[in-house]
């Protein structure tokens, strides 16, 4: 890679800060790689959407925020929880569906949450998080604080009705929110130019009163610089901004994606720009990092992820009788029937014999025709045969 450009070095933050960025990107990468393995081993169910390749967009943007600022994300949000400081243990436990998960095992991969760290959640409905983020920003504005909300979503989400509705309202009411499109070139298997008439996504806010800008989402420095400018502008001028972070998703949309919609060459080309080695090289070249430190950062990340898996493994599953907890906030004397229990959760199969019979039944109806670890494949229609 050779010596880093002077300009890049000049943009570097304090060495400690730079190393922390690298460490966090590495943690996210290692965490998600491990999550993928755990998924293959059926420790994790449902969908698992990884942001591998997009780490610079996550760290570069979140580090432009103050701890009092808010972050709102999508179903692709492990990294967003981690960057805000949610312990990897709690994120992994959520993937495992355990009580110590950051959503107590209720949400899974798509629905991480950490109120304390102002990570206001991952949302499974494409476009559903935009109005929510604007509402969070409204609350900041209403209470007269200078908090900013960062709302991230994908290129595909720009086509959802809430995009136009929310940007207009945020501009009209001068809400302190930064809208960040993580343009990873695809909405699932549909390439940008096949889902959006305008592919220069900065321009998407033009008719809505929201100015736009882009950053190189493979470069944590550029992402951080542009987002910092955007966040501070929003904080002081109190008008929303739209930032497009141009990046690429290295893995499939979710775990069993056959990726027939793109070529191996295209993926390989983007992988050459992998943001983590690139930033590592830059720091090495700038003398901010030595090889030993770099290895240590990686080893620390791996160790932390090991601990997270161990923690998740040992965390209990939710108790059956917690099924109805938190459907409602029931904090004072209450009357009436809130929930209709025509089936009693306790009555479900629990004895081994019953469980076995049920498993057989499941197999017969196709749910488990395919090994558990391929359940995503089943859902995506790719069968084991």
């Amino acid at each position, binding site marked *: 890679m050779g010596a880093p450009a002077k300009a890049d070095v000049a943009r570097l933050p304090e060495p400690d800060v730079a190393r922390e960025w690298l460490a966090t990107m590495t943690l996210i990468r290692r965490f998600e790689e491990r999550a993928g393995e755990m998924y293959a081993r059926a420790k994790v169910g449902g969908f698992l959407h990884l942001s591998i390749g997009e780490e610079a967009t996550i760290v570069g943007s979140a580090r432009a925020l103050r701890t009092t600022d808010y972050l709102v994300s999508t179903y692709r949000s492990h990294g967003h929880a981690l960057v805000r400081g949610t312990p990897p243990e709690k994120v992994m436990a959520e993937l495992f569906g355990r009580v110590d998960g950051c959503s107590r*095992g209720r949400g899974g991969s798509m629905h991480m*949450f950490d109120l304390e760290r102002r990570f*206001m959640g991952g949302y499974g409905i494409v476009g559903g998080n935009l109005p*929510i983020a604007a*509402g969070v920003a409204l609350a900041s504005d209403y209470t007269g604080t200078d908090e900013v909300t960062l709302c991230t979503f994908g290129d595909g989400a720009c086509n959802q009705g809430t995009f136009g509705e929310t940007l207009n309202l945020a501009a009209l009411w001068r809400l302190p929110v930064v809208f960040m499109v993580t343009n990873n070139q695809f909405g699932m298997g549909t390439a940008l130019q096949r889902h959006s008439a305008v592919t220069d996504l900065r321009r998407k806010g033009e008719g809505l009163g929201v100015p736009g800008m882009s950053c190189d989402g493979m470069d944590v420095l550029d992402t951080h610089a542009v987002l910092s400018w955007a966040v501070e502008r929003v904080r002081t001028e109190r008008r929303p901004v739209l930032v497009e972070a141009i990046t690429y998703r290295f893995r499939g949309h979710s775990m069993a994606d056959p990726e027939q919609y793109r070529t191996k060459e295209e993926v390989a080309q983007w992988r050459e720009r992998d943001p983590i080695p690139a930033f590592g090289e830059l720091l090495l070249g700038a003398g901010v990092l030595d090889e030993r430190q770099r290895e240590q950062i990686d080893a620390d990340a791996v160790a932390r992820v090991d601990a997270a898996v161990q923690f998740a493994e040992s965390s209990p599953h939710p108790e059956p009788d917690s099924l109805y907890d*938190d459907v409602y906030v029931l904090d004072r004397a209450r009357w009436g029937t809130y929930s209709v229990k025509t089936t009693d959760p306790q009555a479900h199969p629990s004895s081994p014999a019953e469980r076995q019979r049920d498993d057989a039944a499941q197999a017969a109806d196709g749910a488990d025709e395919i090994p558990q670890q391929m359940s995503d494949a089943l859902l995506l229609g790719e069968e084991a045969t």
Partner: protein
Amino acid sequence: MSELRYRDALGAALREELHRDERVLLMGEDIGVFGGAFKVTAGLLEEFGERRVRDTPISENTIVGMGVGAAMSGLRPVVELMTINFSLLAFDQIVNHAAHIHYMFGGQVRVPLVVRMPQGAGHQLGPTHSHCLEALFLHVPGLLVAVPATAADAKGLLKSAIRDDNPVIFIEHESLYGVRGEVPDSEEHLVDFGRARVSREGSDVTIVAVSRMALTAERAAAVLADEHGVQAEVIDPRTLRPLDLDTILASVRKTNRCVIVEEGWPHGGVGANLAALVCEQAFDDLDAPVARVSGADVPMPYSKPLEDIAYPHEPQIVDAALQTLGAAGSR
């Protein structure tokens, strides 16, 4: 006690809660400068200013979604949708978000949001503006659903809704806005969710009726008494989630007959739900099948005579009640 129109009782509830709690704010289309399509919010912009009473663009899903986000951040937003028909545009935010966020994030965060909207036929507003859709909401766990029929309940339930930590779907009725009723003056006049109102006692047949139909049922009960010597007990559940099934069952155990009256569509409606519950829980007490009176199973037509026959009036309720009595002993 003061005599207030239903509309003004709602307005008073909003005014009092805006005064009481700085976290309360109103959002909706034309609620401010225009004073509200049905004038419930008239005067509130002048009194509380643009910060607390907010006119929005026509963006139903986003208005509700912003309410969700603001509620998650500690405010207590009250969103008005101009009519319940437009809530279908906001169904994603109501169901996938407002109703489920508390549960899906493991109880960490609350969504104290109220979505107010009127429903109902009777003014020839045709197939896009006249439906009664409470059944779509009562189906969804995580929502509370209120259907006040009187001015006192309108005020007391709305105040309770604003103070509740759960998302509340608050369904008003267009034909009730002008109806007057006695309303307690106290600013602490709250009506609890999950407590039915027995508006008339009787021993011969139980009539459960929701929203505007609670009043129609009362008039039907008067006819039953006057013209048929039948003493009907009339119950207005007030809220459909939570549901005061106990009061309904106690009455059915006494009368052994039950009629359910709703203005909405019959297939999978409020009546179907209540009938199923009553049949399940009080099967041995029933001397006749639970009768349902509902709106016709059609999109609401504009034509006056067609609209008239497309939602229930007293005669259908009277007939249904008499039928349950005629059936007595037939088993």
